């Protein structure tokens, strides 16, 4: 699947550029979990974050609209969706970041905290999927 590899690489470059532009223009780290929380907690002081979030949704729409790519399926039971969402929320708030803040910006800053966090969440992601798909837990 060389095409999937190229799309992943090109998408990653877009994400990297977006975080760099956000730092150059607004001086902010492009960490989505932090931005989302700031909008929910304090929308009146974070108008920029509201627009960033709106852009995030619009950008995904634009991709599917312009590239004519099908919308990916999302078939997960509601209890699992709620549990997963809740755990992701608790984890990113406790751990001060997610795949973007730690994985892209933090590693770019060569932050030991972010490198540690990224290795940890990747490892636990691998283990969780292994147990779900091959460990008899579903």
């Amino acid at each position, binding site marked *: *699947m060389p095409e*999937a*590899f190229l*799309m*992943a690489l*090109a*998408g*990653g*470059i*877009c*994400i*990297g550029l*977006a*975080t760099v*532009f956000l730092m150059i*223009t*607004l*001086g*902010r*780290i492009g960490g*989505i*979990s932090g931005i989302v*929380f700031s909008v*929910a907690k304090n929308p009146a002081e974070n108008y*920029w974050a509201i*627009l*960033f979030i709106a852009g*995030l949704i619009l*950008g*995904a729409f*634009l*991709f599917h609209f312009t*590239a004519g790519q099908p919308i*990916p*399926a999302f078939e997960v039971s509601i209890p699992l*969706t709620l549990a*997963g*969402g809740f*755990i*992701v*929320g*608790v*984890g990113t708030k*406790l751990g001060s970041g997610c795949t973007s803040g730690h994985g892209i910006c933090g*590693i*770019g800053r060569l*932050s030991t*905290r972010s490198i*540690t*966090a990224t290795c*940890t*969440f990747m*490892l*636990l*992601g*691998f283990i*969780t*999927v*292994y147990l779900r798909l*091959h460990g008899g837990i579903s």
Partner: protein
Amino acid sequence: MKLLMALLCGILFGFGLALSGMTDIANVIGFLDLFGDWNPALAFVMVGGILVSLPFFQFGLGKIKAPLFASSFRLPTKNDIDGRLISGAALFGIGWGLVGLCPGPAIASLAYLNIDILYFGVAMLAGMFVVDFIDGLLTEHS
């Protein structure tokens, strides 16, 4: 201008997420299935992102005095590795593995107008607020 920049950065970020395949949970689970039928494509998302962010943060940022539309850069100041960081990252990894969505794709996927993805987002916010609430209680008492 500041708000327009935020919108444009968001659009580029969301476009990148959808283009990369990160908003397709089957793709994400395939990538996380390292010990099974591994689909390595999404590793290139991080490669692409770091290819841009690393040179910028290491060589570019130091040459700029201040952001174009804000008074100063806001960079994380913590540099200690504590139990909170590790346990938070571990929980995040578990949640990511359970569903296949991390915060960025979860929000960008709201574009797909699927109510189930909204449930994920609401549950995620609930989790963040629970931690924030407990943090508030702990600082009050200390």
